C-alpha cells in the first residue's frame, strides 16, 4: 500500500536533491538522481497496473484545508483512469529523462534541468492521482509552474522569458474558470471529492447550474490544453529545450484538460450543450492548428501546431461522448508526438541548433535511427494503418460520424492537412540534398545512444500502440475501452464498419492521398518553401498564424498597458490625489488663524496629539465631552 505513495514522492525527492545540490554535483550524479525516480515510479506503476483489481481506492494522506464544514483533504485516488495516466507519465517521462542526459549534456544548467523535470513529474502525478478537484488543481497549477520554469529555462534570452510568461498567464486565465468551477461545486455539493460529487449526481441530485459548472471546468481545460482562444501560448512554448516540448507540451501536461473532462464525465454527460461546445471548440482548434501547420518552416513549430490540432481531435471526441476513444488518442499521441519531438530534437542537436526545415534535407543517411523512427512517427500521426494513430484517430472519427456528419467531414479535412504537413516536414528534413552550411554538414552525426534508445522504444509504441484498444474489426478486444468502462457512461457499441464504406474509406483517403501529394511536390519536383519575404496573400496570412497574436496584442495587451499608465498617472495623480490634496488645502486655509500657536514641527504635532489623547482619557472623557 505504502508503495503507492512512493510514486509521486520519488520524483519530488529527485527534485529536492538535485535542486539543492545544483550546481555543486557532477552531471553524471545529477543524471542518476534525476532519472532513477521516474524509472522506479514507472516500475511501481506497472506493478499497480498488473495487480489492479478494478476497484477505486482512496488513500487518505493528510488533511489539508478544513473550513467549517468544508473538508479538503490530500487524498489520492487509484482507479483505472489514474493508473493509465501513471503509466503514460512515468513511462514516457522516464524515456525523456534518459534522452535528456544526452541532449542536455553540454548545458550548464544540467542539474537544474533535471530538478525541474522531476518537479514536473511530481506535479503531473499529483494532478492525476488527486481524489478531489482541489488536489487536481494543485497539480494543475504546479505543472503550469514547471512549464513556466522550463520554457524560460534559458532565461538570458528575453524572448524565451516572454514565452514562458505568456504560457503561465494564459493558463491562469483558464485557471480562473477552473477555480470558479470548484467554487460552484463546493456551493452545490459541499465538497470537491470526486466520489461525493459524482455519486450524488448519479443519485439524481443534479443542480440547476450543472451546465455552468461543466463550462467553467472546460475553460480551465481550454487554457491547459491550448484550445481556441487560449492556444497561442503553446507554439511559443517551443522556446524551451526540446525534451520539455516532448514531455510537457506534447505527451503529458497539455492532455491534462482531456484527463479532467474524462474524470468529470458524469458532469459533462448531463450538460449536452456544453459537450456540444467542447466538440466545436475542439474541431475549430483542430482545423486551425492543422491549417497553420501547413506552412510553418520551423520543425518544432510544425509539431507544436500539430499538437494543438491533435488536442482538438481529442476534445472533438469528448464532445461526441467518446471518452475512451479520446483517451486512446491521448495515449497514442503521447507516444508518437513524444517520438516526433525527440526526433526533431535529435535533428536540431545534429544541426547545431538549426530548426528551419528549409536549411535541412538529406539527413537520412547521416542519421539512420532518427530517420527511421521519425518516419514511423509520421506514419502513426498521419493515420496510416496499422500504426497506432490510425486506430485512435479512426475511433474518434467513427464516433463523430454517428454524432454529427458536418463535424466528421471537417475533421476529415483536418486529417488530410495533418498527413500533408507531416510528410512535408519529413521529406524536407530527411530526403533530398542537404541545404545547410558547410560547417553544419561536417558536424552532422547520429545522436548518442541515450537519445536513440528512447527514440526506438517510442517508435515501437507508436507502431504497436494501437493494440491497447484494438477494435473488433481488426481482431482486437478493445482492451482500453473495457478497462475504463466502469468510470464512463455506457456508450452504445458502434457496430461493425467495413473498409468499403464512406465511414472507413474517407479517413483512409485522407491518410494516403496527401502524403503522395507531398512526395510529388517536395521530393519529385524538389520544391522548397520560399523565403519569408517572398510569401504573399493567403499563404502569408497562414504563415503569420492568422495574426492572432497581433490581434490579442491589439485588443488585450495594449489596452491593459494603456489602462495601467492611465490609472497610475492620470486617475491616481490628477483625480483622486488632487481631490485629497484639495481637502488638505481647504483645511490649511481655514486654519491660518490658528497658525500662531503652531510651531510647524510635525513631530511636535504628533507628540502633542498622542499626549492629548492620553490626557483626555485620564481626565475623564465624559465630563469633557458633555
Amino acid at each position: 500500500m505504502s508503495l503507492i505513495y512512493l510514486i509521486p514522492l520519488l520524483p519530488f525527492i529527485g527534485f529536492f536533491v538535485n535542486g539543492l545540490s545544483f550546481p555543486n554535483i557532477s552531471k553524471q550524479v545529477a543524471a542518476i538522481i534525476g532519472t532513477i525516480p521516474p524509472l522506479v515510479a514507472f516500475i511501481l506503476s506497472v506493478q499497480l497496473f498488473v495487480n489492479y483489481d478494478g476497484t477505486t481506492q482512496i488513500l487518505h494522506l493528510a488533511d489539508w484545508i478544513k473550513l467549517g464544514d468544508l473538508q479538503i483533504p490530500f487524498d489520492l485516488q487509484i482507479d483505472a483512469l489514474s493508473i493509465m495516466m501513471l503509466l503514460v507519465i512515468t513511462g514516457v517521462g522516464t524515456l525523456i529523462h534518459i534522452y535528456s542526459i544526452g541532449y542536455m549534456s553540454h548545458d550548464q544548467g544540467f542539474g537544474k534541468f533535471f530538478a525541474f523535470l522531476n518537479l514536473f513529474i511530481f506535479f503531473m502525478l499529483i494532478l492525476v492521482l488527486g481524489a478531489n478537484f482541489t488536489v487536481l488543481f494543485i497539480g494543475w497549477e504546479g505543472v503550469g509552474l514547471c512549464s513556466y520554469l522550463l520554457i524560460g529555462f534559458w532565461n538570458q534570452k528575453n524572448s524565451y522569458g516572454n514565452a514562458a510568461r505568456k504560457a503561465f498567464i494564459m493558463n491562469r486565465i483558464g485557471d480562473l474558470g477552473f477555480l470558479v468551477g470548484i467554487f460552484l461545486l463546493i456551493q452545490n455539493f459541499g465538497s470537491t471529492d470526486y466520489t461525493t460529487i459524482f455519486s450524488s449526481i448519479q443519485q439524481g441530485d443534479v443542480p440547476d447550474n450543472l451546465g455552468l459548472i461543466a463550462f467553467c471546468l472546460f475553460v480551465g481545460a481550454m487554457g491547459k490544453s491550448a484550445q481556441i482562444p487560449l492556444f497561442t501560448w503553446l507554439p511559443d512554448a517551443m522556446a524551451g529545450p526540446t525534451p520539455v516540448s516532448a514531455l510537457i507540451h506534447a505527451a503529458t501536461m497539455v492532455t491534462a484538460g482531456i484527463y479532467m473532462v474524462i474524470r468529470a464525465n458524469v458532469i459533462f454527460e448531463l450538460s449536452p450543450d456544453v459537450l456540444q461546445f467542447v466538440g466545436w471548440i475542439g474541431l475549430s482548434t483542430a482545423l486551425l492548428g492543422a491549417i497553420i501547420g501547413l506552412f510553418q518552416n520551423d520543425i518544432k513549430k510544425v509539431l507544436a501546431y500539430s499538437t494543438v490540432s491533435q488536442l482538438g481531435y481529442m476534445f472533438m471526441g469528448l464532445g461526441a461522448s467518446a471518452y475512451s476513444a479520446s483517451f486512446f488518442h491521448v495515449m497514442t499521441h503521447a507516444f508518437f508526438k513524444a517520438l516526433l519531438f525527440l526526433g526533431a530534437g535529435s535533428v536540431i542537436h545534429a544541426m547545431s541548433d538549426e530548426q528551419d526545415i528549409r536549411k535541412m534535407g538529406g539527413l537520412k543517411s547521416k542519421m539512420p535511427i532518427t530517420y527511421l523512427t521519425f518516419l514511423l512517427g509520421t506514419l502513426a500521426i498521419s493515420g496510416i494503418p496499422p500504426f497506432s494513430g490510425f486506430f485512435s484517430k479512426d475511433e474518434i472519427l467513427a464516433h463523430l460520424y454517428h454524432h454529427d456528419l458536418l463535424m466528421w467531414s471537417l475533421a476529415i479535412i483536418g486529417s488530410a492537412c495533418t498527413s500533408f504537413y507531416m510528410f512535408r516536414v519529413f521529406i524536407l528534413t530527411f530526403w533530398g540534398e542537404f541545404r545547410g552550411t558547410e560547417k553544419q554538414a561536417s558536424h552532422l552525426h547520429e545522436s548518442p545512444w541515450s537519445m536513440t534508445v528512447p527514440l526506438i522504444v517510442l517508435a515501437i509504441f507508436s507502431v504497436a500502440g494501437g493494440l491497447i484498444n484494438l477494435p473488433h474489426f481488426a481482431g482486437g478486444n478493445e482492451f482500453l475501452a473495457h478497462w475504463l468502462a466502469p468510470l464512463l457512461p455506457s456508450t452504445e457499441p458502434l457496430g461493425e464498419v467495413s473498409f468499403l464504406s464512406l465511414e472507413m474509406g474517407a479517413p483512409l483517403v485522407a491518410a494516403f492521398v496527401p502524403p503522395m501529394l507531398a512526395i510529388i511536390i517536395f521530393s519529385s519536383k524538389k520544391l522548397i518553401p520560399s523565403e519569408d519575404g517572398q510569401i504573399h496573400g493567403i499563404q502569408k496570412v497562414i504563415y503569420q498564424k492568422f495574426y492572432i497574436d497581433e490581434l490579442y496584442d491589439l485588443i488585450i495587451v495594449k489596452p491593459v498597458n494603456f489602462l495601467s499608465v492611465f490609472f497610475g498617472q492620470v486617475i491616481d495623480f490628477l483625480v483622486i490625489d488632487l481631490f485629497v490634496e484639495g481637502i488638505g488645502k481647504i483645511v490649511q486655509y481655514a486654519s491660518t488663524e490658528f497658525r500662531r500657536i503652531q510651531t510647524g514641527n510635525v513631530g511636535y504635532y504628533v507628540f502633542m496629539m498622542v499626549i492629548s489623547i492620553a490626557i483626555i482619557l485620564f481626565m475623564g472623557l465624559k465630563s469633557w465631552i458633555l
Partner: protein
Amino acid sequence: MNLLFILFFPLLIGAYLLIAKPKHAFIISLSATILEAIATGFLLYKINETMLPITFIQDWIPEVGIQFSLKADGISGILIGLCALLLPFIVGSTSNTEKANHAQYQGLMLMMQSAMMGAFLAKDAFLFYFFFEASLLPIYFLASKFGGENKSAITFKFLIYTIFGSLFLFIGLIFVYLRTPGTTHSADIETLYLTARNLSAESQGYLFMAFFVAFAIKMPIFPFHTWQPDTYTTSPSQGTMLLSGIMLKMGTYGVIRLIIPMFPLGIGIWGNTAMVLSIIGVIYGSIIAIQQKDAKRLLAYSSFAHVGLISAGMLTQSFDGIQGALYQMLSHGINVIGLFFVIEIIERRTKSRELAQLGGITQSSYALTVCFIILSLGSVALPLTNGFIGEFILLKSIFDYSLILGVVAGITIILGAVYTLRLIQKTMFGNVSRITTEFSTLTLEEKMVLIPLSIFVLLGGIFPNAILHFSEESVMQITQLLK
C-alpha cells in the same frame, strides 16, 4: 502577566535604545525581538491548548469606565503572532548596513512593535484607539528621518491623512461609548458590541462610514490609497515592511474586531459599497502595478491590491470570509516583507530599483532567485503556498456572496501573475546589465532572513489547518453574533 510582558517589553528596550544609544544596538534589538517572539509563541501555545482567550483587566479610569484591559483570543492571536514573528526578520534585515547599529532606528522599530501589539491586544476601545494612533509616531520618524527622496512631504501627507481618518473613528467610538449602559459607561469592546447593535439602522450606517473610513485609509482601500505608493516607496525598507507587513493589518483587524460585530445593520446599508470599492482596488491596483518602473512601487501597488481582497472577504461577514482574511493577513505579511527585502538586497548592491536597469541576477545569485520566486509564488497564490490558502478561501467567500463580484475579484489571479512575473523577469532573468554584472551572492545574514521566510511560504500552503483551527473558535463567536 505574559500579556503585559509582550506589550511593554519592546517598548522598554526601544526606549532604552533611544535614550542610552548603546553601541551594539543591532544585537540588543534582535535579541529583544526574538525573546518577544518566544514569549508570544508561548502565549499562543497556551491559547491553542485551552482554546480560551487570555485576558488582563485593570481599572484605569474607573469614573468613566475605561479599563486597561487586554485580551488575546484566536483573532488577536493571529495578529500578535504575525507581529512577533515578523519583527526578528525585519530587524535582521538591517544587518551589515549602517542602520544595524543605529540605536535610534532600532529603538523606533521596537516601539512600533509595542504600539501594534497594543492595538491587537486591546480589549478596551479607547485603548485600541490610543495604540492605533500611537503607532504612527515611530513609523513617522522612521520614514521621515531615514527615508528616500522627497521624504518630508510624503510622510507628512501620510501622517495627516491617517490622522484625519482616525478622527472619524474617534468620534464614532465616543458616540457609541456614550450610549453604553450605566452611569460610568464602558468602553469595553464587548459591551460596545451590544450597545451598537441596538442602535437604529441609520445611526449604524453613519457609524459604519466613520469607522470604515479610518480603517480604509490605513489598509488602504480605493480611493483612499494615494498616500500609500509614495510612502511605501520613500520609506526605508524596514519602514515599508512594518507598514505593509503589519501596520496595515490594524485596519483589517479593526474591521473584524469592531465594525463587523458592532454594525450589522450599518454593513447592511454600506457593506456592498465598501466591498465594491475594495474589489475595484484589487483590479485597479493590479493594473497599475503592471507598468511600474520602480520595483518597490510595483510591490506597493501589489500590496494595495492584495489588501483589497482581504477587505472584500471580511465584508462578506461570513465565517469563511473572516477566516480567509485572517489567514491572508498572515500570508501577506510574510510574503510582502520577504519581497521588499529582496528589493532592498538588489538596491544595496546595485543602488537601483529601476527595472529597466536590472536583469540577469540569477546568473550570479541562484539562492536569491529561488527565494524570490518562492515568495512571488506565494504572492500570486500558487497552490501549496500560503497565499493560495488565503486567496482560495477569500475568493470562495466573495463568490458565495455574489457570483459577479467573485469572478471580478478572481481576475486578481491573472493580473497578479502578469505583474509578478514581469518583476521576476526584469530583475532575475535576461542579460546582466551594467550594474548587475558584479552582483555578489547572498550573505549569511541575508540568507538567515530570506530562507526561513521562503520556508514559511511553503509551510503555510501545506499545513494551513493549524492556523485555521487556531482562529476558528473566535471567528465562530463573531459570526454567531450576526445570526
